């Protein structure tokens, strides 16, 4: 009796959150899965959607084999997955390296280290859109800060002043990655710092006595003990790359365009941005299907990561 009463009371206290959670998270998650089996609406009501079964999924993932070879049903989707892979491939290792480097630099008795820790963390507090817009202005040709600095060294007739990093298909993605790594490094730094501070000094002292160099200490003591944080950073990095949208929206809008095998494709059109464009065009069912393919991908990658890191531990 007491137990039932306690459960009821706890549920009552939890109710405000649970109700909001159900309405704004659980329901949309379920409803978007339902939507992924329907075509685009022919009018503005969502009541008259045409049931299309798995057509959205087959249009997205399918391919046909013709006389000229394999042709994908939606090459732009596969391209955007490739762009996302590039984004993750560049931003995750660079982000981890930058965070770890900052943490190692500030894990000492340096005067003013608290100031530096706060300063490096600060960009994290800012909104992604704001950071994106600011970096867009830094990279801008002619009037941007980078163009001005380069003008001083190289004169006006150089790439940063005439074209700008964000307007060239080969430099746009690295430029976005650099901005995002610098924004996110402070957060990783805090995580690494916390983990570094948890490593007992006695371990390093023992290693010193055994004659290990600093490099060996880092490689055999620090890094293995930081593995949980590394795992966390890789997993959140992958999820972050698959969800990337705001930075692209703010800085490049998916461009500049690059022509690959006759197809004109956006050189920074990551899958999150591609999804948004489908949604914006009113293709709700198709956009929902993309989001579920992404969910499956995220789960698969996280599972693989877990196995990989767990394997190393044993």
């Amino acid at each position, binding site marked *: 009796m007491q137990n039932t009463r306690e459960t009821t009371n706890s549920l009552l206290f939890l109710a405000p959150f649970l109700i909001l959670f159900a309405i704004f998270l659980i329901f949309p998650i379920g409803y978007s899965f339902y939507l992924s089996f329907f075509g*685009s*609406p*022919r*009018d*503005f*009501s*969502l009541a008259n959607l045409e049931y299309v079964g798995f057509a959205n999924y087959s249009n997205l993932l399918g391919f046909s084999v013709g006389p000229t070879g394999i042709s994908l049903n939606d090459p732009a989707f596969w391209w955007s997955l490739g762009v996302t892979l590039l984004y993750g491939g560049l931003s995750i290792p660079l982000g981890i390296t930058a965070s770890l480097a900052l943490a190692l630099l500030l894990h000492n008795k340096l005067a003013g280290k608290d100031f530096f820790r706060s300063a490096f963390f600060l960009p994290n507090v800012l909104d992604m859109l704001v950071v994106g817009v600011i970096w*867009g*202005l830094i*990279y*801008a*040709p*002619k*009037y*941007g800060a980078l163009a001005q600095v380069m003008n001083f060294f190289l004169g*006006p007739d150089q790439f940063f002043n*005439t*074209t*700008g990093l*964000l*307007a060239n298909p080969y430099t*746009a993605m690295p430029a976005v990655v650099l901005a995002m790594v610098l924004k996110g490094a402070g957060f990783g730094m805090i995580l690494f710092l916390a983990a570094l501070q948890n490593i007992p000094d006695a371990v390093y002292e023992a290693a010193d006595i055994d004659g290990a160099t600093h490099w060996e200490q880092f490689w055999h003591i620090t890094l293995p003990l930081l593995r949980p944080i590394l795992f966390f950073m890789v997993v959140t990095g992958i999820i972050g790359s698959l969800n990337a949208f705001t930075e692209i929206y703010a*800085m*490049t*809008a998916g*461009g*500049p*365009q*690059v*022509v690959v095998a*006759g*197809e*004109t*494709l*956006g050189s920074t059109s990551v899958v999150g941005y591609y999804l948004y*464009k489908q949604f*914006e*065009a*009113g293709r709700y069912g198709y956009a929902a299907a993309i989001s579920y393919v992404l969910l499956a991908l995220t789960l698969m990658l996280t599972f693989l990561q877990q196995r990989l890191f767990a394997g190393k531990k044993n």
Partner: protein
Amino acid sequence: MNKNYLPWIFGIFYLFLLAATWNDRVDVNASGRTILQFWHTYNDDEEKLLKEVIAEWEAQPANSNWAIRPIRIPFDGHKPKIRTALTVGLGPDFARVDWSFVCELARKNACVDLETFGFSKISDQYLSAPLNTNRIDGKYYGLPDQTTCVALFYNKTIFRDANLDPEKPPKTWDEFIETAKKLTNSEKGTYGFGMDNTLWWTLPFFNTFGAKLISDDGKKCLLDSEAAVKALEFKASLFSVHKIEAGAWRAGAISPESGFVNGRYAMIFMGPWNLPKFTNSKLDFGVALIPAGPAGSSSNVGGTNAVIFKSSKNPRPCYDFLTFFTSAEIQARWCKRLNQMPVNRKSYDLFSFDDKNLQVFMEQLKTSVSNPIVTSYEMLEDVVNPEMEAVITGQKTAADALGNASRKVEAKVLSL
């Protein structure tokens, strides 16, 4: 003990408040008039005048049953806002929308065919270019309330500095290139021309070359026509061959508007909405017709239309108000006060424009060609813009790019 009663007291108080303020006739105002909701995107000055016009209309004895409630929504994002409102059944009775939105609203069965009210009797009082943006599959689903197009703005100071006559802007594309070459000084960072690269801003090029983009029946994309290819080749050559365009279309570059204000770009395409801003910035500028191509001078059409939604219980008074609002007298007053171009032909006889620049736009509007009408104009831009960029950056030929764009438009846009 007392504390236990507190929630009850609050509960009863709120119930009382609810009962006292409950009104199940939210569509009727305090004086018993039925409310008609009008969503618009006017600015402060326009809204003030709109309210005056509404008061005049409501004061007429025939309209004593109605009260128009104007609700301002931001122009940026007005489409998704209206889409969402219509989806959940909470849309207004009528609204002012961008010209490109009427087709989607009509084809998705959301707005009323104006012939229901006998629109054909008065339709020829409107200028044809803005009126035609309302003509979807042979019927009118809206009426124009404001119209714009773009023309050539040029900086007279830069003209003088280059020893050019500031009263003689280029009249043809050949003259345009000659003039722009004299105005370009890439070392100083000044260019003869700064351009955008979206389809709407490229329409003046297509139209001066006589290229039609979509067939009359709306089923075929004509972007791969010879005229369209030549127009795009010409546009791209301004940047890549003649080097008179600044690259203003690139991500992060100085936009044509800012470049013009800052004296970086000597000539740009721009609409009349920036006339007050440029005048206030003490810029010495002039406005000229878009240079003539093989098909003469021509431009695009912009502006807004008013539509009445099918969900409205009282479409007739909405229509009556809109015809009153766009009548010759009201339009004349509106445009004189706000320095805009009337959509009603008869208004032009009622007053004269002092603003010489605006007169150029009137002249330009006469040769403007109606825009491509498709269900999803955004998607048309999404498909065509990247292909045009590939041409300007030299990655594709105009014929390849437009052939590709044409196929995609037919598959993705015209099939909607």
